[in-house]
Every structure is written in C-alpha cells, then in structure tokens.
C-alpha cells in the first residue's frame, strides 16, 4: 500500500468532462467535475441512474480517457499516458470490484485472485502463495481451488475483492459492489470494506443505496454529469449493523 502522503490527494480531478457524441448530438456524461480524494478516504458516489457515476469511476480507474480536464493520480498527471502505461498504472495502484464480480468462470479462486500478479510479472509459485494468503485473510481459505460456479454470490464478490487487493494497491474502486447481492451479504461486503479502510486503503464505492453510502466517510452526489454535493459524515459501523440483525450469525 502506498504510504499516505499527508496533504497530497491520491486522486485529484479538475474540470473533468466526458462527452459522448452519438449521431451528431453531444451527450455530456460528465460535465466539469473537480474533486480531490485523499489517502485513506472511504468515498461513496451517489446519484440517480444516468447521472455519470460509472463514467466518473471509469475515469478515476484509468479505464477511460476524459474529453477535457485534468487528472492527477498519486501526484502524476495521467492525461498523456498511452493505453499500456495506463494498464501498468491500473495494475500497480488500483483494484477494481464490479457489480457482476467478473471472475473467470473456469479459473479457481486462487487463479482468479492471482490474475493481476500475472501481469505484474510475479513468478508462478509466488503468485499462488500471495493469492492464497489474501483469500485466507478474507475467510476463503477453504475455498482456494473452487471455481466461481461453486461459490455463493457473496463468496464470489469476496474473491473479486481479494483480486483487487492482491497487488496491494493504494485504492479500490467498486461500482455497485453490492448491487447483485442480498442485503445481508451486502452488509458483509461493506463490513469488509470498512476493515480495509481501517487498514488505510482508499475506497471509492458507487451505489445508489443510501443505506450503503452511510458506511462511507464521504459522499459525492452526482446529477446530470455534475457533482452537486460533497458531504463528509460519521460512518455507520457495518459490523455492528450486521450483528444487530435478527438472524445474526456470521
């Protein structure tokens, strides 16, 4: 994990815009957003459907390039980077968690988790060791050689989180990570995120569920491609919320 550099933001965007041109008409999916996310923050990104949340996340995650504006990731201006340089940055500095998990169906949990290490040039034996270690810390030590089909939705998402963590990135970007899960499993994932947050990892989580956003320390709200609210808050404790549920048994 990157050591938190006080006073310097991990992700800093200025006047960020992403315009899609379709059949002559320009669609401003993101329209002049400026925000700085510091090391160790737990940010929830909210807003109605189509407001530009995913567009924003894709830009933060270097999966997409802005039409306009500046983006500094860990102090480095990434505007001019080519596709391969961005791939390498994603590999080193970022971890992704998706709504639909995006695990390779034929690969085992360990192999899925080890995938970023393949592209980091880590030798085979060490890859397996490191992937297994991360899975163990997430309580999946008994499921190392299971394929996604043999795992529950919550377990699959935890494998995906292990994959995001395995390269020890500074930040994890999650787009609707609980969207495909029931509310209890969603809570478990949020408890896990809070634990990671406690370890100093920066988290940016897109959700349109206020219950989920309540576990973050900061909430960014988007509307029509603009950042309309930036609010810091005292987070609810997900582990406590989980324990308080009637059928509580973790």
């Amino acid at each position, binding site marked *: 994990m990157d050591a938190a550099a006080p006073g310097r933001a991990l992700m800093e965007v200025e006047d960020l815009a992403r315009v899609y041109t379709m059949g002559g008409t320009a669609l401003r999916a993101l329209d002049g957003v400026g925000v700085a996310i510091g090391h160790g923050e737990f940010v929830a990104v909210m807003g109605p459907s189509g407001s530009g949340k995913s567009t924003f996340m*894709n830009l933060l*995650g270097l*999966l*997409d390039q802005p039409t306009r504006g500046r983006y500094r990731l860990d102090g480095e201006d990434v505007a001019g980077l080519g*596709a*391969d340089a961005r*791939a*390498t940055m*994603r*590999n*080193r500095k970022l971890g*992704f968690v*998706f709504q639909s998990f*995006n695990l*390779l169906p*034929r690969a085992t949990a360990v192999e899925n988790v080890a*995938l*970023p290490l*393949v*592209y*980091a*040039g880590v030798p*085979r034996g060490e890859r397996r060791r490191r992937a297994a270690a991360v899975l163990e810390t997430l309580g999946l030590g008994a499921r190392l050689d299971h394929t996604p089909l043999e795992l529950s939705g919550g377990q699959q998402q935890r494998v995906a989180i292990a*994959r995001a963590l395995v*390269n020890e990135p500074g930040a994890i970007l999650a787009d609707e990570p609980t969207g495909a899960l029931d509310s209890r499993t969603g809570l478990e994932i949020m408890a896990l995120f809070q634990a990671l947050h406690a370890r100093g990892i920066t988290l940016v989580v897109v959700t349109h569920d206020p219950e989920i956003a309540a576990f973050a320390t900061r909430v960014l709200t988007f509307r029509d491609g603009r950042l309309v609210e930036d609010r810091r808050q005292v987070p609810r404790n997900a582990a406590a919320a989980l324990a308080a549920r009637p059928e509580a048994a973790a």
Partner: protein
Amino acid sequence: MSPLDAFAGALDSLRANALRSALTMLGIFIGVAAVIAMVAVGSGARETVLAQIRALGANLIVVVPGNVTVGGVRLGSGARASLTQDDALALEREIDAVEAAAPTSRGQVQVVAGGVNWSSWLLGVTPSFFVARDWEIALGRGLEAEDYDRGAQVVLLGETVARTLFDEIDPIGETIRLRNVPFRVVGVLARKGQTTGGQDQDDVVVAPLRAAQQRVLGVNRANARAVGSITVRVRDGEDTAQAEEQIRALLRQRHRLTAAQEDDFLLRNLADIAATRDASSRTMSWLLAAIATVSLLVGGIGIMNIMLVSVTERTREIGLRLAVGARRRDILMQFLIEAATLSALGGVAGAALGFAAARALTRIAGWPTLVSPEAILLAVGVSAGVGIVFGYYPARRAAALDPIEALRHA
C-alpha cells in the same frame, strides 16, 4: 505475462473447448498427415533409386533379353535366349567406350553347408564382372583365370551367406553344396549392406560362369552360350548415352535385326531411371506442395474462424484482463499463442499419423518409406506458423478492445 503463462493459459482454454479445438485442428491434422505420409513415400522411393545407383554406379548399363516377336506373336521379355557371352565379348572388343562387358547368369539356389540350409542367389560371372562392379574380397582370394578356364567348382560367399552358414567359423576351404553340387569356398565378399528397399546385397554366392551354368543353373538348350544379362561398364569420361547407342547398334547387327524389327534386348541405364524418377518426384513434390498449401489454408481459415468466435465469447474476460493490468501486447500474445498452439497440436498429431501411415505402408504394402526428422519439424513449424498468421487478425481484434465496452459485454 510470460510466454510460458500464455502457453499454459492456451492449453487451459483449448481443453475447456476440447471438442471444438479438436474439430478445428482437423484441417491442419489431415493436411500435415497427408503431406508427411506422401513425402515419406516419395523420399523412400527416391532413396531406393539412389541406393541402387550407388550400389551399381551411374556409368553402368545393364543389357537384358527383351521382347521377341515371332510370326506376329509377341513373346515376353526374356522369352528367347537372345544374349550370349559372345555378345559380351564383342561389346568389350569393338566399342572403345566400353571398359568391361560382363555376361552373368543368375538363379535362386538352395545352399547347404553342414546342417545349415539357406536359399540365396547364385551369380555366374566371368573376370569382366569384377571390372564392371567394384566388389571387393574381404577374406581369402578372388576368382582367378584358371578357375574360369577349368570351370572350377569354387565360390565366393556374400557376407550374409558366410555368416549364416559358418557363423564364427572360417569358411575358406570349406565345401558347400549348391543344389547338391559341391563347391569349395575360396573367398568372402566385403559387406555391401542393404538397399533402402530392404534388399540384402550380401545374400549372394558368386561362382565362375561355366561351373555355375553347367553344374547348377543349367545351360540353355537352344544356345549353350546364352546368358541372363550383360553388365556393361562405360569408361570414365565417356558419354553413357553415346555408348548406349553404340551398344544398341552393335547388338542389332549381331542379332541380324532388320530396320523394321524391334530390339530383342533392353538397355537399362540407371542414370536414365534416376532421371525419370527424379522428374516424376519433382512433379510429385509440386503436387504435394499444392495439397499442403490448400489444406493448411483451409485449416488456417478454420483457426481464424474459431479464434474470432473465441474472442467474442471471451470479450468480458479480455475486458477484465485489461482492467487488472494486461497490456495490448499481452492480449495479443495470449491469443496468438493460443492459435499457434491449436495449430501446432494439429500439426504434431498430423505428423504422428503421417508417420504411422508411412510405417503401415512399408509393413503392409512393402513400399520403402523415409520419414526425416526435418520433415516432421518442418510440418510442425509450418503449422504453428499458420496458427500465428491466421490467428493474428482475431488476436488484433482482441487486443484492440476497449476495456469498458468489453467489461459491459453481455
């Protein structure tokens, strides 16, 4: 991503679609198998001819009795005793280009020594034979002038015969029986080995012509001087084709053939045989190249097709790989290696089948075949190359995918 990782991944994904992979390989598989088998037959045949030429020498012409037409009825080759020792003597005497003309008679005989019984070939020869052919003596002595003159019952043994009949014992001075007629062994010929066709050149017994004919093979009733063939050696530096014409003219004259009559003998020039075999094998090579090209092309297009399907099916996987840090060239390499592996596996399997088919042809049909390691390496290399060429376009498509769109792919 290391090439080794890419290769392991390629095997995994080919295994995951085993049937589809196998069917895709079929084109390459069959093409390579056919080419390997046919090249094996072709080079086997060529090697046989080369070995025969090596064994005989390119400046040898073999004259054998030919077709004879009597009263409009064509009799088969060798139907009449048309070649004689006197023909041979005349060739040697009257044509400068002829270094030696050796009349020989040949027949299969039962050879017995002690309790051992062996079927071999008896060659009846004159001194010219050892001028025409470079057969050497390994043990004992060769045949000498007085052996020929007196019709002495002495023999030289080919290495195989000597070993079979006498094993470790020195055969020189021993007596053997050819069709029950006693002959004394005076020498053993140097080993000449097998032809690629599997003929053992050392399975032979050589005796003076007179003794061989009179005592064992029998004398032609129509003409006591008749022989089975005449082996002519053309002097070094002389033109074989020209010598052949002189031989033909002299024999026609001696046999009193009118201009309207066909030759009653055949001239076999090994250089000619080699040349025609070479020309036909060159045609064959072109044919093979055409078959190989077509089958590899068809196989390659099959691979391209299946790789395009695979790229589409795995769009999300590609998106994910890009998201977690795969560079364009990693994706490109992954799919190229997959295509090359698919194709090379087809090539390896095809080479194995072609090899097996060649062996079967040799065993069952008795065709000489030759599978060179180079041919197999070439087949596998070329098929891997086909995979790379035809896999390039699909791999490019995969590598050019936009990560976001790929991840959103259904």
